[in-house]
């Protein structure tokens, strides 16, 4: 069990010694039980840090934001930034470093092991609380304990955990500077890719029936993209919400943007968007599952990413976020890559 005091002490220590200019972690939000991202820059704030089953967020997103912010100000950092990272989050950080987004020494990773559990899935939890709303959530061994107006509710974590955590193969942040919690790599709460396997068992037309409804529902709020640390492009190729205009941008650059898809949130465009995103995350997605959690219309985006992840793993022996110096999935190849689909 992780003692939150350890995380707070580390944060305070880092800030006191000037070894970190900020600590990105989790704190209690204003909405019921949910934690929210916290940006700690002074010692008092360090006591706000929490670690509970609602610490969903892949905070490495904010490392990206931080770099963008610094780049915008044309500043360089005077000290690393510390970040609380779960296994999946730490792998994201590795991918970002693999892609030279920042250097290892720019980040101080305060690893947290998910140990035997993971984060809660609000959608699974709601029916089990019978309409009550939880005001806090806590780890307790293999259980989660929720506080509601009706009192304390203890539930086995496996019943309310997010699928991504159940299926997680590496619940421990291998890449870290400090780490808390027991390394329970190898724990198997569900088959890896279990949800994907269930989905894939259906036939082609059944899969289309389901996906076409999902694609119809997408409202292209781009939360999936916005919440994803890998979607750090200044301009998204499919639908720009932030065309990077710099001193080097020419009028021609602006005129020559390719409209791969239209802004209309209609099925064909939504498909192209979501499929492109899946392709662009192949070999980069570390299955933090934030895109799926953030989606306001419950599109199972994780399935798309999982599909790519499993192909990469099974066909190309590729694990995203395995090493900082590792090769990139789509920029590399092996002689043994499958080619039997080619005529």
């Amino acid at each position: 069990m992780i003692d939150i005091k350890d995380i707070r002490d580390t944060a305070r220590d880092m800030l006191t010694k000037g070894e970190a200019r900020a600590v990105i972690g989790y704190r209690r939000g204003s909405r019921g039980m949910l934690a929210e991202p916290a940006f700690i820059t002074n010692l008092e704030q360090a006591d706000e840090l929490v670690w509970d089953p609602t610490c969903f967020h892949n905070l490495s997103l904010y490392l990206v934001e931080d770099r963008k912010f610094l780049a915008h100000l044309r500043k360089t950092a005077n000290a690393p930034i510390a970040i609380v990272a779960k296994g999946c989050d730490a792998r994201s950080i590795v991918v970002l470093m693999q892609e030279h987004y920042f250097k290892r020494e720019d980040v101080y990773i305060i690893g947290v092991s998910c140990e035997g559990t993971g984060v809660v899935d609000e959608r699974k939890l709601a029916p089990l609380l019978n309409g009550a709303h939880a005001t806090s959530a806590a780890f307790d061994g293999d259980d989660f304990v929720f506080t509601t107006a009706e009192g304390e509710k203890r539930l086995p974590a496996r019943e309310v955990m997010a699928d991504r955590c159940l299926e997680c193969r590496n619940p421990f942040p291998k890449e870290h500077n400090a780490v808390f919690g027991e390394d329970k790599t190898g724990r198997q709460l569900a088959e890896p890719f279990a949800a994907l396997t269930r989905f894939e068992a259906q036939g082609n037309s059944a899969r289309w029936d389901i996906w076409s409804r999902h694609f119809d529902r997408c409202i292209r709020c781009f939360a999936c993209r916005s919440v994803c640390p890998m979607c750090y492009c200044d301009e998204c190729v499919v639908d720009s919400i932030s065309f990077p205009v710099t001193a080097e941008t020419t009028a021609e650059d602006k005129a020559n943007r390719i409209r791969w898809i239209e802004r209309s949130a209609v099925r064909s465009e939504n498909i192209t968007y979501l499929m492109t995103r899946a392709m662009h995350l192949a070999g980069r997605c570390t299955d933090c599952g934030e895109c799926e959690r953030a989606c306001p219309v419950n599109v199972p985006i994780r399935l798309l990413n999982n599909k790519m992840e499993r192909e990469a793993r099974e066909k190309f022996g590729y694990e995203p976020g395995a090493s900082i110096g590792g090769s990139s999935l789509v920029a590399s190849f092996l002689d043994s890559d499958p080619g039997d689909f080619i005529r």
Partner: protein
Amino acid sequence: MSEQQTYEPRIVAFLCKWCSSAGSDLAGVSRIQYPANATPITVPCTGAISPMYILSAFNKGADGVLVSGCHIGDCHYIEGNYLARRKMHLIMQLIEFIGVEPNRFRMSWVSAAEGGKFAQVITDFVNDLKPLGPQEKLKKAERA
């Protein structure tokens, strides 16, 4: 005439300049006949084919998309077709995963010497596409 007989699938064929485009030239020189459904777009190398091209072609209403390049080991740019093989595998898997008929995407290796094979690849593709009918799943609606 049934619809299946009148329906002519529209194919976008991405051909690498050095092998498959040259192979299609050879089919021409050899006067090997094949269906006129595939419009070729010549690119330097299959390695230059972005998955976006495939998605975009389907988005714009292609019934089938073909990617054809040099055999493994023959790439003019040495490694381009290896990179393509991996990317195209992924995109093909993804297309199939969401329930699009896998036969709508095809990849082939056709060398500059394989005019006959080029014609066969197109013929087979057209034959495989005809029973599937028009591709509506990924296509931009005319007016929604």
